């Protein structure tokens, strides 16, 4: 592998012009994507300057007074910052740990279904929750769990004879409810990418394994799983990069002051603060902070993966 790379570098030098001419069709096809990223990912980065000024819309970004790191100092000095950071990180981490394996297991299971029709039905049903609006999901949740009118509490009280539990206002249930509903909503949808990877596994491998006397479970363990490991790792690295991007709409809908201590995350805090006054600069600073942490995670995960396996994003 290493050797091949070296020869490629040392090979006969083709002039750049020729290279461009040779790959012109491919390059033309790249243009839309490059433009997309330039316009929607790189150009907005200029907006990050907001974090360093005291933004006044009429003066524009460059005209607003420069305040250096003041906004960041405000973020760090904030008495709630440690808690916000902790809540954001924990919800992100637990979500990753708990919801990451589900689509993989599900994809493996679906892959073992023999009847094509049944397989399609199972898949379709599993995608469905993904298309339900979060508002509706949280509405269902609070209706079912209500201590006074909810069906779950009624059953619970009937069976145990105890007082109903106020699930939605007890901080200790918040993360569980948040993550469990997330898993339910997304595992089917997220399994698609693994199913696609599974479809690419060479049938010949299974045939030879069968000849060697491997049963279905052994085939899954020793052929299917290793074949999708690269996909799993890439997905994991990508997900690590989102660890601090906690779904803000859902928390806004689910939380209340009684669950702030576990549910109040960076984005919800910024939102409440934004209501008092459109504090663009503070929002940008805290958002940038978030992105930097995400960046650290994704780079770290990638480094780790490159070091201990052959797969990595770059």
């Amino acid at each position, binding site marked *: 592998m290493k050797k091949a790379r070296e020869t490629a570098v040392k090979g006969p030098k083709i002039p750049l012009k020729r290279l461009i001419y040779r790959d012109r069709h491919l390059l033309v096809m790249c243009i839309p994507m490059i433009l997309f990223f330039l316009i929607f990912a790189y150009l907005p980065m200029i907006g990050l300057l907001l974090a360093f000024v005291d933004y006044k819309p009429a003066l524009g970004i460059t005209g607003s007074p420069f305040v250096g790191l003041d906004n960041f100092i405000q973020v760090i000095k904030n*008495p709630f910052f440690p808690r916000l950071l902790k809540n954001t990180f924990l919800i992100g981490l637990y979500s990753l740990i708990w919801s990451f394996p589900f689509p993989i297991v599900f994809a493996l299971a679906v892959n073992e279904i023999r009847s094509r029709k049944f397989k399609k039905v199972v898949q379709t049903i599993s995608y469905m929750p993904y298309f339900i609006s979060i508002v509706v999901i949280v509405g269902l949740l609070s209706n079912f769990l209500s201590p*006074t009118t909810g069906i779950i509490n009624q059953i619970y009280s009937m069976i145990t004879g105890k007082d109903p539990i106020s699930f939605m206002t007890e901080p200790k249930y918040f993360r569980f409810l948040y993550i469990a509903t997330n898993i339910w909503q997304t595992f089917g949808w997220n399994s698609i990418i693994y199913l696609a990877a599974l479809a690419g596994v060479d049938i010949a491998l299974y045939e030879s394994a069968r000849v060697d006397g491997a049963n279905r479970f052994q085939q899954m363990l020793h052929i299917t799983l290793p074949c999708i490991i690269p996909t799993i790792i890439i997905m994991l690295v990508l997900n690590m990069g989102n660890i601090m991007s906690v779904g803000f709409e859902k928390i806004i809908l689910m939380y209340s*002051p*009684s669950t702030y201590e576990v549910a109040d995350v960076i984005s919800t805090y910024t939102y409440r603060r934004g209501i*008092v006054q*459109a504090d663009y600069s503070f929002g940008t600073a805290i958002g940038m902070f978030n992105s930097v942490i995400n960046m650290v995670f994704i780079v770290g995960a990638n480094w780790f993966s490159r070091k201990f396996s052959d797969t990595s994003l770059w």
Partner: protein
Amino acid sequence: MRKNKRLSGIIAGTMALSMVAAGGIGGVSIRAEAAGSRAEKPVLPLAEEGTETLTIATMDNWYATKSYNDNLPVYQEFEKLTGVKINWEVIPINDYDQVMGTRLASGQNLPDIFVIPWEANADQLGYDGIAMPLNDLIEENAYYLNQLMDKYPVVRSGITSADGNIYAYPGFGEGFVNTAEEMETGELTDPGANLCLNVSMIRQDWLDKLGLDMPETLDDWYNVLKAFKTQDPNGNGKADEIPLTATFNVRDIYRFGEAFGLYRSGNAECRWDVDDEGKIYFKDTTEEFKKTLEFLNKLYAEGLLDPEYSMAAYDRTTEKINRDLLGALCSDWMSNIGTYNANLKTAGVDDANWVPVKPIQNPDGESLIVNRWSVWKTAAISKDCKNPELAMKWLDFQTLSAEGVALTNFGIEGVSYAKSDDGKITLTETATNNSDGIGAQEYLRSLGAWGQLPYPQAKEGYEVLWADQPEIIEFGNSFTADQVVQPFPNNGTKAALPFTDEENSIRSEYETNIETYCDEMAIKFIEGKESLDNFEDYVATVESYGLGELLEVHQTAYERFLGTEG
């Protein structure tokens, strides 16, 4: 006890401040000098037909099926009367803050008139040069608004920003305009207590069933709630009654502070209020608030308070009402009573009767009602407006002329309302019993009335609308003038005390932290997760989060507010 003489407090404060005000506070001129002549009564049409157009950006109609884009009858009528054609730029309600907010932030291609987004800071739009300063424009063109500001100086205070300029044309809740007619005659009458009040409500039929009297004191409330819990007023044999809940905001239940002289300030549960000496105080750290929490803690411990009160939201509350479970609610709008009773009747509870409860007696034994805060910074004229005089004249006519008030409150004569010879207005059968099966107010909205552009909610408007619920109107009218408390100027964005830019950054630095902490702790105190013995520590923490600075900022802004009132 803190607020039973609110008005005298304001007056005393005003006098103490008059000297400061004369010199201007902090280099800010309090009252803009009138540059030109005072506005005359406008002559219709305002412009020759077909010559003038105004572009207006607004969120869409509350009644979503009829968009302003469809040229609704009320605005057709306005076009006929004024000769000015309206170019609508309508944005769906839920997108308005975002779409308009972005457009205003970019500051380009602005419409002539725009409705100020809910979450925007109206004053800031002025400081940023997006909204035009209106002082002279109002003086010279807004005949009706001038009339109103002369009679109610608080209107001027309510829309004047910290730099002394006015950047918004106000919309009004109740409390200023009584009838459409009086805007034409100029003889404004005193409206007294609001009709659409925010009050606690209770099931009168449950009280009757259990042989209880309407609660007047805190002890009465406790006994009534206890009876609701234990004596099965809904008669299903189960103790499933929820005696009390917050209606749509966890802070609703702090209304019980009334018993200790802590009053809710009008529209939302505002954390700030002013005492008899004109000093601003923060409610959530007072001794009275502690007593309120003690009472609520007792309710919670005995199961008299909905365990879900901290998740309060309208849909949950309505569900509990409709299932015949709820006995009383803290703080709801009078306008909802009719719906609650109708829903319960549909659900088969024929004798269901929700009624408003008079406020709890304060330590002096008085039951005082707080009016709504009713001046809203609703519409602005943008810096790009080419004919600001016309825009102002149009806004003023639309909002406060007799024709305007009638159109925005009752709709179209002959369609939605009829006028008898002695001037009495009644809704037509078409409005009250319409073919679409919608309520009368929704019907009026489908015509363009009760909308998004500024308008005054005339007392007459509610009387006409609620003609079939005389008991609600009687409730509002049952308060005598000395029982009515004028509200503290909300510190919400549209009805803000006039804060300067600098004060706003102090607020944004401290306020969210304090609010987060207070809300969280109050719930812990009520639910017994934190002992009220630790109230002192709680107060100390709030102070360490910058309460002192915030108090100072509010005090300055309030004094500035009083200054402009003078």
